[in-house]
């Protein structure tokens, strides 16, 4: 009886779902839930400080920003920074390289990952499958820097990769100094590092397929290929679609880490991408306004692509990021 009474008098329990954002509701709920507000405030402060203030800082894109004058004192230049970028040879080069790398990642890495998972699923021995998985995502744990170090070593004139390529071309050179090799090196090292790890999600989706479907297909006389085409692939097509759509939504956001570690002026022609260009102009050359303009352009495109991708994903797979 007493418990019941305290239940009713406990304000935190009485109202579970405040639906309407009326001033009165907000006030009452905030007062009642002040401990929750206290708990979320540090995180909110973090997001305001390190995310929303930098977003406001994008105003620099319209200024000839000088750190001494600050964002409020620097001269306003309108769209000059954007014009500078789009009228330079850099615009086409960086956008093209970003799109090509993304295209290679979607066109090559993406299907290979799925094929990898499908073939893995066909392995009969559970133990062998486990072993393959363990070994194949070990490279994921090698840090980006160490991987770059290994790539530098393998591509140098005395390295195994350079020797291999040299055997075909008759010219043993430092592969990282030749822009023709940049994209193959980039894609192959991506595959080496991430293939096993990226396949996890498909392997999991595959293990969720109802085994009785395979048995039924076998009884109906379906051979292995038919079983893969008619049972396995339909079973994971949703996963494939959503991964593909989300990947397309990130077309213009290729990360800079590997590029910055490995590129050099000799290979800028094929290696320089938007993110590495922004880093070089902004942080290395301290060309703040200009690089912020490029950055803003990149962020806006990424944002739009992501929204479009999400809309597509919702429409065709009934699942989306948000």
């Amino acid at each position: 009886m007493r418990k019941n009474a305290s239940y009713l008098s406990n304000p935190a329990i009485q109202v579970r779902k405040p639906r309407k954002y009326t001033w009165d509701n907000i006030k009452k709920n905030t007062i009642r839930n002040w401990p929750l507000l206290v708990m979320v405030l540090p995180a909110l402060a973090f997001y305001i400080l390190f995310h929303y203030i930098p977003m406001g800082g994008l105003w620099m894109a319209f200024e000839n920003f000088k750190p001494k004058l600050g964002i409020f004192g620097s001269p306003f230049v309108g769209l000059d920074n954007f014009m500078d970028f789009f009228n330079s040879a850099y615009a086409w080069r960086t956008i093209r390289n970003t799109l090509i790398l993304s295209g290679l990642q979607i066109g090559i890495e993406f299907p290979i990952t799925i094929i990898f998972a499908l073939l893995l699923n066909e392995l009969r021995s559970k133990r062998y499958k486990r072993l393959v998985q363990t070994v194949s995502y070990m490279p994921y744990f090698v840090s980006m820097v160490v991987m770059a170090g290994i790539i530098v070593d393998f591509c140098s004139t005395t390295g195994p990769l350079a020797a291999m390529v040299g055997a075909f071309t008759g010219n043993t050179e430092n592969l990282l100094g030749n822009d023709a090799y940049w994209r193959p090196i980039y894609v192959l090292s991506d595959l080496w590092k991430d293939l096993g790890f990226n396949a996890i999600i498909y392997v999991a989706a595959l293990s969720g397929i109802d085994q009785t479907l395979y048995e039924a297909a076998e009884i109906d006389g379906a051979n292995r290929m038919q079983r893969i085409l008619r049972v396995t692939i339909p079973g994971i097509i949703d996963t494939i679609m959503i991964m593909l759509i989300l990947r397309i939504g990130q077309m213009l956001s290729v990360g800079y880490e590997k590029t910055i570690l490995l590129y050099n002026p000799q290979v800028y022609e094929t290696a320089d991408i938007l993110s590495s260009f922004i880093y070089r102009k902004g942080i290395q050359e301290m060309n703040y306004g200009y690089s912020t303009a490029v950055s803003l352009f990149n962020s806006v495109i990424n944002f739009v692509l992501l929204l479009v991708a999400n809309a597509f994903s919702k429409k065709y797979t009934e699942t989306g990021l948000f």
Partner: protein
Amino acid sequence: MAMVKSRNIGSRIFNVANCAFFALIMIVCILPVWHVFCASFSDASWVMNQTGMIWHVEKFNITGYKLVFADNNIWTGYLNTFIYVIATTVLGMFLTVMAAYALSRKDFIWANPLMLIISFTMLFSGGIVTLYILVTQTLGMYDSRWALILPNCMSAFYLILVRTALQNVPDSLEESAMLDGAGRFTILFRIMLPLIKATLATIILYYVIGNWNSWFNAMIYLRSPDKKPLQLILKELLVDVNSSNANVDVSILASGESGDAVLYKQLTKYCTIIVSTVPMFIFYPFIQKYFESGVMIGAIKG
């Protein structure tokens, strides 16, 4: 009957080919590591004159490792990495868990609006240049350890994962705790967190690995050698020597004479790779399971 048999033969050939294919994949995964491993225990002059793949250990010795272990940079790097990993993980997890709990409560009117504000940062970003200006100019954290800890201690993605896990805890547990007079903090730390241990372990793991491997922030925010984390020291040692804007850090070789320096340069590189990667590989078998479950909870949410 003949049909069935031929199908079986085809199936068998496929099985063998498939097994062989994965054997090849495993070899490709291991080869680079094997190359580095063998080279690191081999004779310095042999390693220097070697072209192509190194398949075996030549004249086993540990000279390279002695040089690496005698070098203070590596130890400083390790120590700094530990500081950054622990500080970022502890601070980040604390903020994430508290915020995720508050935002997971259905009766909290601010939950959805604040979640929206936080999620939006996953879609749109101010970019690295504005953040760099904020951290270095406005906050004055250039060459400060805080620059490596604060700006990236939280991730909206991890927050969502924790929030989802907390939402799945039955409401009755919290209600009965409230009846016993427990406050929000007590409920969170005594009741909720023990129930979502698996999710927390996975996210801690992501924090540790992400920060262990991170080098970019250290490169742009730090100047003092005594604050640099391991990965940045590795970058200067392994990668910068080959790029044109090289800022070659040869202090690692300072112990040897100049002739020796050239001789041991290649060898010590290999040894450094092994020394820096071994801790991850030792933990790898233990954390593999959590890593997989991490991908899965991420996938369900995504």
